[in-house]
């Protein structure tokens, strides 16, 4: 790896999801030197796993393409994938940060021709598809993956597969001797944009995610609905591979609940409303969706999306936190039990598939944060003097939708620039 040039006028961006990419790009296009680190083999984060965005129902890939091109065109950004921050010390305007990079076993010679992938046999759960599909032991995470460079799964290192892959590559791109690398750099400010993870649905015991096959999560549903996902966009239920046309969406699955996540994750209502349109898109009048909710939070001007979905007679709204789900052994249908609190109507509703709108759990290293940073009880980084020049962007700051996350990232870029401008003495 070429030397990393960084000074206390450099800005470190931790996390290459839409927030991190945005923060890095805005600051770089302003003219600052940026180091962008991402722990996965490619940038893009959660949004690259979404089929569509609400409320426009446009494709995240579209914005990804633009952002990738902005990065390609910008010499100010040094991007490091498979890299994590392992320590931070120092203070505002002068931090010393240790970066640890995992071996990719594929060097810059890779042309992404795919010859290596063709020859290896070992397959693993495809985490890009939340384990709903398989991928090879040497792989490109997905079609839009950037950098467009293959990754060799450490699990095949030392197996014949690895040697086969190396032999298949005409360009000497596979380097099985790659080692973990650590670099210590100096930066003036840090933008923390490590995003979020879906709340572990196994913990929501009454909904039986761990026991009932046809109970899945909202993030899994995105992959199922995506024409480029593991099922080619067919909404097939796990138990029997049948098409699911009557689908229930359960809101606040892990959110607004002191037993799980205390906070409201903000995006889930809109996400489920959006997902009802997937059902209708695929099945037309045969597609039926039911949303079980406490409050529908379609906030500000996007409320009209809620109004549109409400007008759809195939989408039903039940004001109820579902009590529990049992499986109808014969049909494999999950049966939802609870009470519609609008006028007290008890229900026991079978559906072909249940989608849990799982909550947003911040990926901020709670408790063991590298330096003193104010992390609130929900695990989000709060703006605070004591944070020095460490600024949260996107879902490290709060449960945000993409639009607000990008906004937050843009703001954090400014705050970082204010610091390094002060360091550079260019604040005029």
């Amino acid at each position, binding site marked *: 790896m070429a030397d990393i040039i960084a000074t206390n006028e450099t800005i470190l961006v931790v996390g290459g999801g839409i927030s991190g990419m945005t923060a890095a790009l805005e600051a770089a296009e302003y003219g600052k030197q940026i180091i962008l680190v991402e722990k996965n083999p490619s940038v893009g984060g959660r949004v690259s796993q979404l089929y569509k965005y609400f409320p426009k129902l446009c494709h995240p890939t579209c914005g990804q393409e633009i952002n990738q091109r902005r990065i390609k065109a910008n010499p100010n950004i040094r991007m490091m994938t498979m890299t994590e921050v392992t320590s931070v010390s120092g203070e505002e305007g002068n931090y010393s940060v240790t970066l640890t990079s995992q071996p990719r076993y594929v060097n810059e010679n890779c042309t992404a021709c795919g010859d290596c992938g063709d020859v290896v046999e070992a397959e693993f759960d495809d985490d890009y598809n939340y384990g709903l599909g398989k991928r090879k032991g040497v792989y490109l995470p997905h079609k839009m993956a950037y950098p467009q460079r293959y990754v060799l799964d450490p699990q095949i290192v030392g197996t014949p597969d690895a040697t086969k892959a190396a032999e298949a590559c005409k360009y000497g791109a596979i380097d099985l001797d790659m080692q973990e690398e650590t670099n210590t750099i100096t930066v003036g400010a840090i933008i923390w944009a490590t995003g979020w993870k879906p709340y572990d649905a196994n913990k929501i015991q009454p909904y039986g995610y761990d026991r009932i096959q046809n109970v899945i999560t909202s993030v899994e549903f995105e992959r199922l609905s995506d024409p480029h996902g593991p099922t080619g966009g067919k909404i097939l239920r796990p138990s029997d591979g049948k098409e699911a046309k009557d689908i229930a969406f359960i809101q606040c699955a892990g959110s607004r609940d002191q037993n799980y996540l205390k906070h409201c994750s903000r995006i889930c209502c809109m996400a489920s409303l959006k997902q009802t349109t997937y059902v209708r898109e695929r099945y037309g009048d045969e597609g039926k969706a039911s949303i079980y909710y406490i409050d529908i939070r379609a906030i500000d001007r996007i409320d009209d999306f809620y109004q549109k979905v409400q007008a759809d007679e195939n989408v039903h709204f039940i004001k109820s*936190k579902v009590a529990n789900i049992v499986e109808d052994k014969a049909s494999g249908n999950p049966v939802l039990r609870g*009470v519609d609190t609008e006028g007290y109507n008890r229900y026991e509703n079978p559906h072909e598939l249940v989608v849990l709108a799982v909550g947003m759990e911040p990926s901020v290293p709670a408790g063991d944060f590298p330096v003193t940073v104010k992390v609130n009880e929900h695990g989000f980084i709060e703006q605070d003097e004591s944070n020095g020049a460490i600024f949260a962007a996107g879902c490290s700051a709060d449960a945000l939708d993409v639009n607000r996350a990008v906004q937050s990232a843009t703001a954090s870029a400014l705050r970082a620039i204010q610091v390094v401008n002060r360091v550079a003495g260019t604040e005029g």
Partner: protein
Amino acid sequence: MSNLNQAMVEKYRNSFLQEVQANVEEGDWVKMCMQCGVCAGSCPMGPYWEHPPQEIFMMIRAGKREEVLSSDSMWMCTSCYNCIARCPRGLPITHIMHGLAHYADRLGLAPKEQPTRKFANKFWDNLTKKGRVNELKLGLALYFMNGFFEGIKVALANQKLGLNMLKAKRMSIAEMFGGHGVKDSNGLHAILKKAREIELAKADEFKG
């Protein structure tokens, strides 16, 4: 209307919520409900509730005092704790239901013929007499709680059950005469008397 009830009505005029907060076990939690209904859906006796817990909480806020206190819904609670386990706001619903039932009973508003109300009271009387439950007497008392003839019917219906239990030595005629009990029953009664006094005094001094 019982004097206590009269007093309470005057004291809390229009705020039933405050009355509940002051006088009902764990009543202070009622305001924290967010009407998700998970309790209503989780109750094994659900179908028999005229007003499920979450609705009762709403009725309390809406000031429906008579309807709530004279309802037999709370008496449906089997103390299975499903509601407590699932409530996203951590309301001790089981206890609130018990508390409401107890309060309604104390005010004399609970439905007279509610079987669980009767049984629960018998149970309490039975256990407090000697400090331990006398299952036989409790059982018989239970059969006859709806009057003599009704009682004979129930008793006959349960005759086989009784015999089974006797056979299995899990019911003893000895219980009829004396039976189990704590030695220091005076102490026990003193404790209960004192506890009751403190509780009433507390309810009294609460300024709504």
